[in-house]
């Protein structure tokens, strides 16, 4: 399946992915209306390492997802490889946040969990972070289970 | 006054026709004249002409210069020049038949010449090269004189008019040739000039051509590096020079020459067996400026044969017929059917595929 992968050598640390993510999942059609004067709760996080290398972290859509196994409400599930969250079932216990080893499940600002769903459920249709990355540092593609050295 | 060939480049459409006996049988001009009649509409009366091979057996060792002069003064100026380099073997009028359709005639002379050996030794060139140089000089520099044919045992006959009228005007039924080519012209914006009619000749090469080549200036500017002067700015002229350059001066074969002028596409070349691919690649690489693009169907006449060639996209019509020892080539099948009414073997050669016909060795 296609997943989001990071090419950190090309990440500029511009954080546009976070804004594009927040906008894509806002349900609004205007970015200004969606994001101006508000804190953003993106499902992708740009990190900076000790050498100043930046890269974006979002859900890995693990083959053996501990978040799905840990969800007390059965709100997280894996469909066709995509780990989805059913917001109507989530009660906001945040157990998923506690167990995700990559810190990819985060609170949405209102107390419930959210995570990258590859923009399958919003109007974007394909990951907004990938589309908006100005330098090809985030890609959406098929890769083999053996870690590719890219 | 409108500009003539040489002052401006004039595009034109055309009709071509040719007949050749592989056995070297000589035939009078009646048939080739007739062949142009069904293609009347391909010409517009502004130029017609013929080339005939094997017509001067008694003078076959001499260059036969056919020359237009605008005046007696031009004629004497030109003859003075010729005499510096050649012995004049014979200097005569070309006999014509007065016709109402053919007007504004220049003085038309036929001069058989033989290069002076002392001159050749002095210039360290061969006789053909001398002829080329002097003819180029006359045509480029002597205003009012125009050598329109300069080969051995062959001659071109051309005028402003429809080709069938031109043929009768020159009384071609009185000449006997083993190979005839003919041309009718449809220039788009000129009153026509006798010199501008086809065929265009250089030594024994004659070209009749239907088309308008888009590579003209690339070809011209290249060939002019080698002493040729494209005074007429016509396709036929430049193609004749290209043929002369490749065949005579570079020593390419007819097939190789065709592969330069109408080079196969790279996609075709790249798919060929290695040896052939190398040769074709070499020819395109070595003579890129002699690739001729745009529509053309040409018939190149030379001593002992002819070659017909279409542009590589075959943007102009050309059909070939074969019957017995005879080969016929024309813009339209109708013309061939005039020359050989009961012919059965008629085909249309592919673009860029040369049709080479040679008279049996020793038969001309």
């Amino acid at each position: 399946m296609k997943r989001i992968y990071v090419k950190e050598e090309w990440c500029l640390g511009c954080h546009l992915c976070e804004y594009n993510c927040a906008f894509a999942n806002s349900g609004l059609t205007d970015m200004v209306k969606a994001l101006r004067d508000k804190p953003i709760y993106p499902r992708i996080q740009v990190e900076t390492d000790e050498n100043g290398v930046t890269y974006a972290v979002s859900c890995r859509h693990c083959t053996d997802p501990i978040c799905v196994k840990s969800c007390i409400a059965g709100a997280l599930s894996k469909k066709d490889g995509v780990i989805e969250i059913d917001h109507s079932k989530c009660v906001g216990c945040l157990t998923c946040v506690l167990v995700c080893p990559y810190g990819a499940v985060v609170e949405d600002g209102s107390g419930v969990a959210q995570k990258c769903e590859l923009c399958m459920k919003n109007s974007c249709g394909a990951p907004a972070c990938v589309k908006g990355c100005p330098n090809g540092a985030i890609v959406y593609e098929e890769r083999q289970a053996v870690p590719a050295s890219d | 006054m409108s500009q003539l060939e040489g002052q401006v480049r004039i595009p034109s459409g055309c009709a071509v026709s040719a007949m050749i006996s592989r056995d070297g049988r000589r035939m009078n001009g009646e048939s080739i004249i007739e062949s142009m009649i069904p293609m009347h509409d391909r010409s517009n009366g502004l130029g017609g002409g013929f080339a005939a091979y094997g017509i001067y057996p008694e003078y076959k060792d001499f260059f036969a210069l056919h020359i237009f002069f605008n005046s007696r003064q031009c004629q004497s100026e030109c003859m003075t020049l010729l005499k510096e380099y050649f012995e004049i073997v014979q200097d005569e009028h070309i006999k014509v038949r007065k016709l109402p359709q053919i007007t504004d005639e220049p003085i038309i002379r036929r001069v058989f010449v033989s290069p002076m050996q002392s001159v050749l030794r002095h210039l360290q060139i061969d006789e053909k090269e001398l002829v080329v140089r002097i003819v180029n000089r006359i045509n480029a520099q002597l205003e009012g004189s125009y050598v329109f044919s300069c080969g051995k045992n062959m001659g071109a006959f051309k005028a402003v008019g429809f080709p069938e009228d031109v043929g009768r005007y020159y009384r071609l039924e009185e000449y006997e040739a083993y190979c005839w080519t003919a041309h009718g012209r449809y220039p788009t914006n000129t009153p026509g000039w006798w010199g501008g009619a086809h065929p265009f000749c250089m030594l024994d090469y004659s070209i009749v051509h239907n088309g308008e080549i888009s590579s003209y200036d690339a070809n011209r500017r290249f060939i002019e590096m080698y002493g040729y002067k494209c005074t007429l700015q016509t396709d036929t002229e430049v193609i004749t020079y290209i043929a002369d350059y490749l065949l005579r001066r570079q020593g390419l074969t007819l097939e190789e020459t065709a592969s330069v002028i109408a080079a196969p596409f790279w996609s075709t070349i790249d798919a060929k067996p290695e040896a052939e691919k190398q040769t074709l690649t070499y020819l395109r690489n070595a003579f890129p400026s002699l690739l001729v693009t745009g529509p053309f169907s040409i018939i190149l006449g030379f001593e002992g044969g002819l070659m017909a060639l279409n542009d590589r996209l075959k943007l102009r019509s050309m059909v070939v017929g074969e019957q017995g020892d005879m080969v016929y080539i024309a813009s339209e099948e109708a013309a061939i059917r005039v020359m050989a009414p009961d012919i059965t073997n008629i085909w249309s050669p592919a673009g860029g595929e040369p049709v080479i016909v040679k008279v049996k060795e020793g038969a001309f």
Partner: protein
Amino acid sequence: MNFYPEFEVERNDSRCIRCRVCERQCANEVHWFDADGKVMLSDESKCVNCQRCVTLCPTRALKIVKSDCRLRENANYSDQTIKEIYRQAETGGVLLSSMGNPNPLPVYWDKILINASQVTNPPIDPLREPMETRVFLGKKPKHIRRNADGTLDTKLAPQLTLSMPVMFSAMSYGSISYNAHASLARAATALGIYYNTGEGGLHEDFYQYGKNTIVQVASGRFGVHKDYLEAGAAIEIKMGQGAKPGIGGHLPGTKAVGDVSKTRMIPEGSDAISPAPHHDIYSIEDLRQLVYSLKEATEYRLPVIVKVAAVHNIAAIASGIARSGADIIAIDGFRGGTGAAPTRIRDNVGIPIELALAAVDKRLRDEGIRNNVSIVCGGSIRSAADVVKAIALGADACYIATAACLAMGCHLCRSCHTGKCNWGIATQRPDLVKRLNPDIGSERLINLMNAWRHEIKELMGGMGINSIEALRGNRLMLRGVGLTGKELEILGISHAGE
């Protein structure tokens, strides 16, 4: 002396979402976020109008505009002229500029129009018929030779084979970034054309692209060694550059860092100064010696290019080069780009490539030596139309660099000499170099060239020409508009309507 900034940052606060991408992406540090007022602020005096922030601003909240605060109008002493005087009065220094001459000098390409077929001759549809753009660069044989069996001896002097008549011209590793070189090398390889190392040597990572690389030997001889010469497909001797004829080059020590210094074979941090002349070439016969030295060194396997700036007597110079043993002459016109050049030189020395090319092609034909060399012209070839016009004037191929930089993201802010290229091209700062992802850079170069190739084919098809060699030197396909008789004469073309 303080001036009002040349550009103003216009920020539409009602659209700004404070994402701070402008701040993060500006190497000139124009923008910053004021946490107290929660607003973005800017120092416009630092802005070079590279448009990086404008391009990346996700809400189009930004634009950079030319400031209208000008000195009193004076047609003779322009605002810029006066400010340059102030700057020089302050610093006592030579003014530096980058990229090509921006002044409104004639662009002859724009005054030349291309022919098309109508009625008497059919245009050719490149989507239906083959349309060939393959070009060979190198000496053509004077006479054919035959083998004993009568077949043609197909051996030729070394040639470059181009899928289309465009190459990426010299930009050194140092003047541009590793990623820019990677993009050019990868694109040239994918396209079947060539890129040029410039005078900076060849980074070891790029030897793999050698088949599509022209290695340059310039007056400083930086990075030149045997393996380098042998790595490429051709060797270019750089005698001059259109943007700065008559002067050498200067890579400041700040750019000679890391791999750049290693590749140039100079100590880290040292200025790389290429002298104005090659000190072993004070005359044409010296050039011939260098040409043959390089041929000897590479066993006559590679064609040698001699690149010269278009200067007044270019035709005579070219004639000399054509007899020097060189296989290809590259002529660089005065509008060509540079990573840094003295402003006065860039803007006042040299002649337009169109005139130089026409004069050279004509001279070589007049002398019957056009077949000795191929001609490559550069110095602001901006489009497929320019390419077609150049070929029709007589060039075998064109060199492009500014257009290639634009494809890679350059916004022509003409600040290369500062080393802070926000687009990751003319810089060695790792954080900026990173901004040019060669996956993207090479793809964009490939796209550009493919687009041009399509356009060249369309233009050729319109002229009824289906192979590029039939266009070369085919000046009948060109007409001038608004040119004087003298200009037309030099260009060797007729006026439109003639």
